[in-house]
């Protein structure tokens, strides 16, 4: 089980402007976490540290106590799978099978292992009938499933989703929430980077709020719901759902209903 620790990370793309200013954050093994913040707060920069795409200017990031500076991106990606925005824009293969196999092949899987994971993952994502199809011919929903499958194929311990909710419709939102729940059942860590508070509340138990390169709040989602002033500090809005949960918690509703927030049962039971 993989854990990620970032200690006092500073980072600048250009010498004059610091994007991360002393960020310390932990992703424990098996965590379900969200990193929330407005655009430009440094969230994407931070998660690029988790698989070594970026290295801190000062401070350190360790994955299972291995400093990211001492290893390669491919080595780190074996444990930490990052899915960026619009992953369907990164297709390049002639067949769906090749696209799914790309990651595992790079990670050093043998031919048999590759076939096994392609079979497994294509089944899970309903792509088994499309293995010989051209990725560019798939429908929107199928493309998104393929991009998920491509990263989950090599079964990383930690899965990072960078702004998965941009432009998504209802069906995809439901698909994502279910997927995250299933991955959690398998014991994987999930880190969701987003500015969509409702989505974060529905999919994570722990959260960190990032604003202008600093962590302004870190802890359990339930504690955050109780302290809504943190939203303002992070230049985020306290949504209706968040304020409702706050009121419910204040009136004594049991905490177990809120981590993560289940809208269905919230409307039903509570």
């Amino acid at each position, binding site marked *: 089980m993989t854990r990620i620790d970032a200690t006092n990370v500073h980072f600048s793309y250009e010498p004059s402007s610091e994007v991360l200013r002393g960020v310390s954050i932990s992703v424990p093994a098996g965590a379900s976490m969200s990193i929330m913040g*407005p*655009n*430009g707060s440094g969230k994407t920069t931070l998660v690029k540290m988790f698989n070594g795409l970026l290295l801190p200017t000062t401070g350190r990031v360790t994955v299972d106590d291995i400093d990211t500076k001492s290893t390669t991106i491919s080595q780190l990606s074996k444990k930490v799978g990052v899915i960026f925005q619009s992953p369907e824009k990164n297709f390049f293969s002639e067949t769906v099978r090749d696209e799914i196999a790309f990651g595992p092949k790079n990670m050093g899987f043998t031919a048999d292992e590759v076939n096994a994971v392609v079979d497994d993952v294509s089944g899970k994502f309903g792509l088994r009938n499309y293995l010989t199809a051209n990725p560019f011919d798939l*429908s*929107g*929903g199928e493309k998104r499933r393929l991009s998920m499958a491509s990263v989950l194929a090599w079964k990383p311990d930690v899965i990072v989703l960078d702004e998965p909710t*941009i*432009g*998504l*419709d*209802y*069906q*995809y*939102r439901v698909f994502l929430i279910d997927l995250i729940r299933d991955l959690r059942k398998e014991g994987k860590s999930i880190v969701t980077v987003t*500015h*969509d*508070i*409702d989505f974060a509340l529905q999919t994570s138990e722990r959260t960190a709020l990032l604003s202008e390169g600093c962590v302004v709040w870190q802890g359990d989602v339930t504690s955050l719901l109780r302290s809504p002033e943190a939203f303002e500090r992070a*230049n*985020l*809005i306290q*949504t*209706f*759902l968040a*304020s*409702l949960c706050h*009121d*419910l918690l204040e*009136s*004594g*509703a049991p905490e177990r209903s809120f981590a993560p927030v289940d*809208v269905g049962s919230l*409307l039903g*039971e*509570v």
Partner: protein
Amino acid sequence: MRFGKWPTQGMAKESVVSLKDVSFTYQGSSKPALRRVNLDLGAGEFVLVTGPSGSGKTSLARLITGLIPNSYPGEISGEAKVFGESIVGSKVHTVAQKAGLVLQNPENQLFALTVEDDVAFGPENLALPMDEIVKRVDWSLAMTGLEDQRHRPPFELSGGYQQRAAIAGVLAMKPKLLVLDEPTSSLDSLAARNFVKFLTRLCSEIGATVLVIEQRLELFYTVSDRLVVIEDGSSVVDAPPLPALDQCLTNKLPVNYPFSYLFWKRYGSTTKHGAKKPLPEPSEYVKPILQRRGDRIDPH
């Protein structure tokens, strides 16, 4: 907050968009993108359009603003009129001066190397006289609050400002109808909320009719006159927001139901939108909330 305050009686409002049984299939495609769509927009309305990805919303936007069928050839049937004139046979630039379209990605609509040059681009293409161009550029920049950004290159603007710059460019064509395709998709929650305020203020100031395609219903449903749901190329729901959402719920349509709507539907008063069944008794945790918030359909 509008919630469908569209006056139905009295004066006849000018018909801005009139689509009757319009179907359209892109050239080379086997499936129709639009299937017997019916839509009527009156002057001054603020209409919200939603639906699953690929259902035809963008095609609808292209139709209303003339890209279909003039730029996107294909088979079209039915009657499509904008401001009383048929879309078929009209040139795109003629329609663009009546119905402006702000596409989903603002970056791809900013061509010039400074904001003000970009806003001038449309009027330049219309071969307007120089002083008219200057007037329009100044006006558009003032309307969108971009006077301080006028000399900056589009690449350096933040997402919110890029969005406004794209709108400014379209406004310079002086359309009376504004169609926006998922304008908040690249904005974070705070910027999105500010955008809604900006848009509603802008449209009331210039007296435009607005059609917004969106997934984030919670941002727009309280400021819209109507909500239209497009599924499989047809409009399956077309009503003021609350009744429209009720219909969606009944038919289990895949739309992003605003949580505030779901909550008030469950616990709000029966009189608000004529719920026939007695509502469930709120639990002990919810009661004090209802007492405090009252019976308002105020989502916040």
